[in-house]
């Protein structure tokens, strides 16, 4: 019986080791077109310096885009403080458009006040 249980546990462990791979394949980021980098430049309409991901609305191309940024902790560490991200300010983002939501994008980096901040 003990041998059988050990064998079962070994199999369970093997499955557990595989799970991160499955999780990667299911990553929420796959909802964005990761093979096509787009760049938007415009005026910030509103911002959410919030967890788990910061966001901002950017007026660009005659549309209002929802840009998904990084967690506040990371943005602050990389030099993008809360008061640097304000409505009315001019900003550019590079990133990937959402596959189904036409005006949503996940920003890889943001260029603001001549400074480029990597978000990933």
């Amino acid at each position, binding site marked *: *019986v*003990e041998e059988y*249980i050990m064998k079962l546990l070994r199999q*369970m462990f093997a499955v*557990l080791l595989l*799970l991160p791979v499955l*999780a990667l394949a*299911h*990553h*929420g980021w796959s909802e964005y077109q990761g093979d096509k980098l787009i760049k938007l430049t415009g005026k910030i309409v509103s911002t959410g*310096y*919030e*967890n*788990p991901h910061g966001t901002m609305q950017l007026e660009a191309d005659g549309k209002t885009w929802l840009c998904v940024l990084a*967690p*506040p*902790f990371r943005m*602050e560490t990389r030099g993008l403080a809360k008061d640097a991200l304000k409505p009315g300010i001019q900003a550019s983002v590079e990133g990937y458009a959402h596959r189904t939501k036409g005006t949503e994008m996940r920003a890889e980096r943001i260029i603001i006040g001549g400074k480029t901040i990597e978000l990933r």
Partner: protein
Amino acid sequence: MEIFTAIEASQLARAVRGGVWLYPLINTTHVLGVALLVGAITLVDLRLLGLVRSLGFSALSRLALPVAMIGFLLAAGSGLLLFVAEARELFANTTFLWKMGLVAVGGINALFFHLLLAAGSARWDAGTPPTGARVAGGASLALWVSVLVLGRMIAYT
């Protein structure tokens, strides 16, 4: 649902979302809680499944069960704060709902074991647990590991 919109708009929810330090701190507490819970309960479950019978069940339980309970309380408390911050999105997330369902089943399984099976544990303290106790132990192991996996998957679904 209106109630979740209200929860998300609350002062508490805004504090959790807005804090630069607070959110990672709550997140880390959640991971610590899950680690203590799953780690400690796995030891008890393996003993129930019949491994290392020389290790007295009551002695192991005295150490492992309080650790598991503390882990559960840490995870539940921090989890509630994480839920409040994103109530609407989480309530619409199937993975989250499955996870909470399995937490409930895990709790009922533990309650069932302690009310009905643990009383007689003195008889097999240094031996093989009866079938009921083994089933409860196996179920517990499967349930809590599944809860952990589903919890991690919420961010990816």
